[in-house]
């Protein structure tokens, strides 16, 4: 026995590699290699590079750009810049507004589509349609609706007397935030519908039957069965939506460009503008790194929620 242990301990690294390559997992590693390599090139390399240049004074980064000395200047400047805190405020407002309404509308729609009625299949298809429309197309459709001078929304609101003069949806700070949130909600609620509908269909009918026997009403069943049973799906859907909305670029850029007067300039828009309009890629990378930290914190919170089992 001791001889055998001694012999195993003396296996050279080369022969260990050879055994690994001959072993049953070799083919699995071979199949995994392209995915791992692609991940390293497409995800890991840019992230590491971005973090690296966030600690250097870089205006325009190219792979051949000589590396300057390491510095905290970008981060110090970031926390001193009012534009950064304004972008944080805008990002949080935008995420909270968009996710809250998308979740509420998505939840209500999922509950509706989970009940039996004539034309349910068609209704399900229509409910998820906004999700399938490319963002640029969606924004252009909304552009025509929100046009301050010739748009349909202002016309309708004027006709029914809700407003007395046209709302400047694109060029006024408050309405511009409402406008980008509206488009994001419209684009994002179908995701909640799909996820929550799947979650609702997975809840065993027995639980509702048992609660009915115990005399529980619809509200009580919703509160004590539906909501807890959907906790995992809800957390996951919210997490993914928060991450998507937090880094949303197309809707804001095409609709308002971050304006007016930076009223819709989120961290994603600020990062792009600093990198490609103001040629401060080191500074932009610092904004990106902070955004990554925010996203990670949000992910940890929601993943913990999703992990709590109901059944």
């Amino acid at each position, binding site marked *: 026995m001791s001889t055998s242990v001694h012999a195993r301990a003396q296996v050279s690294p080369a022969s260990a590699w050879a055994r690994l390559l001959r072993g049953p997992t070799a083919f699995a590693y071979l199949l995994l290699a392209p995915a791992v390599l692609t991940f390293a090139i497409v995800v890991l390399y840019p992230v590491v590079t971005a973090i690296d240049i966030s600690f250097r004074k870089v205006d325009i980064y190219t792979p051949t750009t000589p590396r300057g000395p390491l510095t905290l200047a970008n981060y110090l400047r970031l926390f001193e810049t009012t534009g950064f805190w304004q972008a944080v405020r805008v990002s949080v407002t935008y995420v909270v507004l968009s996710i809250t309404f998308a979740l509420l509308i998505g939840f209500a729609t999922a509950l509706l589509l989970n009940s039996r009625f004539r034309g349910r299949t068609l209704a399900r298809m229509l409910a998820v349609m906004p999700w399938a429309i490319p963002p640029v197309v969606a924004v252009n459709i909304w552009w025509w609706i929100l046009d301050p*001078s010739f748009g349909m929304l202002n016309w309708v609101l004027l006709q029914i007397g809700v407003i007395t003069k046209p709302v*400047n949806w694109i*060029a006024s700070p408050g309405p511009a935030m409402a406008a980008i949130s509206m488009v994001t909600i419209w684009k994002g609620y179908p995701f909640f519908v799909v996820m929550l509908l799947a979650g609702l269909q997975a809840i065993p009918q027995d639980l509702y039957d048992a609660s009915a026997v115990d005399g529980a009403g619809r509200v009580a069943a919703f509160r004590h069965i539906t909501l807890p049973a959907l906790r995992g799906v809800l957390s996951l859907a919210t997490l993914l939506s928060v991450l998507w909305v937090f880094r949303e670029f197309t809707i804001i850029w095409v609709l308002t460009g971050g304006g007016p*007067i930076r009223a819709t300039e989120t961290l994603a828009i600020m990062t792009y503008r600093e990198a490609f309009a103001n040629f401060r890629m080191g500074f932009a990378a610092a904004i990106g790194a902070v955004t990554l930290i925010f996203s990670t914190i949000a992910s940890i919170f929601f993943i913990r929620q999703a992990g709590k089992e109901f059944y």
Partner: protein
Amino acid sequence: MKKIVIRVLVMLLVTGMLAAQGGAAPREIVLRFPSWQQDEPGVSGWWKEQITAYERTYQGVRIEFTKVPLAEHTDKLIAQFAAGQPPQIVHIPAQTFFPFADRGWLEPLDRLLDETDVKKTYHALQAKECTWKGSSFCVLMLNYGYAWVYNEKLLKAAGKSVPRNVNEYIDAVKTMTDPKNGQYGIGIVTLPGFNMAAHIAAFVYGAGGRWTDERGNPSVTTPEVIQGFKWWKEVVLGATPIGQESGRLRQLVMEGRVASYNDGPWMQGFALRANPDVRPHLRAAPLPFKATMGGPSNVVAIPKSISEDEKRLVWDFIKSSTVKDAQVRYSVAVGAPAPRQDITIPADMRKDLPFFDVYVEAAKRAVSWIPFGLETKANEFIRLVAEHGQRIIVRNEPVERVMQDLQRELEALKRQ
């Protein structure tokens, strides 16, 4: 297990051999040419003619002429240059040319220009606006001046005549405005970006203001600049549909819902495509200001990082646009004088260009609005001007105070 691995290796080998065989076929050379002018009425036709003629001469070379909206064009080019993948044919608005030259991204063209008569025959702006630190880096495509394109029928219906001074101009556009009926006197771009800054510049330069003084220092608190912003504010708040970009505003002019528009000669191409009931009424007149905003419009250049063979091919393409025949056709296509000064446009070619004479005069009077001293920070300069302009119209802040803030920000930008 061994069999599977061998099969995978054989498949890879066969695929590789097939790919290698495909690679043996004659290789087509593609020169990428992104431009906002790809679908611009008038000038896009001229570019396509040039490309067709070039491809006929240079067999095996294809020019990939693609559309990129003007608002995104410079940012996209910067990203491509930064990634080491610039298009072979670089078409840039003259306003944003300098950052590219300053970063050493463009090929010096002096030696190549000496092969041509460009230096002798082109407008003086070729030498002035294409030179950076003593070397030439571009070829001028167009120099221009703004004019006022208006709907004569709507002007007459408002009981007004062509304005001879700025007060008459403001009065005319305000009188032609009736928002309840979806009718506006003028289209002014109020969405941040290049065109918003250009429209502001028309008023600022019209009032005799300049972004910077003769030493290149910001000068936006002068009475002239403040006056220009006040005129702009009055026109925007009293006569224009808010929150519109240039393409949409031109469309509204073509539909007769916006009565006039300040624009360069390219507006002629749009006017010729206007609705049949609007087209006969569109006219052009000089802007009734002290000075006309304009200058160099756009330029072409060659990236430094492409191969010598590609540089030669691109240069031959650029050179083909500088010869007399091409310049005459260009002038007709854009409805304005071409940069080459030793050409005359035959009368029969001018008869379908009703705004031509107005734009010839506008180009002669034009003052370049490129901010001397801040050329290499054009993108941020444009953003700051547009952002401060928005403060004036959105928050109704006093022009004087906003200009003091803009002055501070521009001074900080210059120091960076």
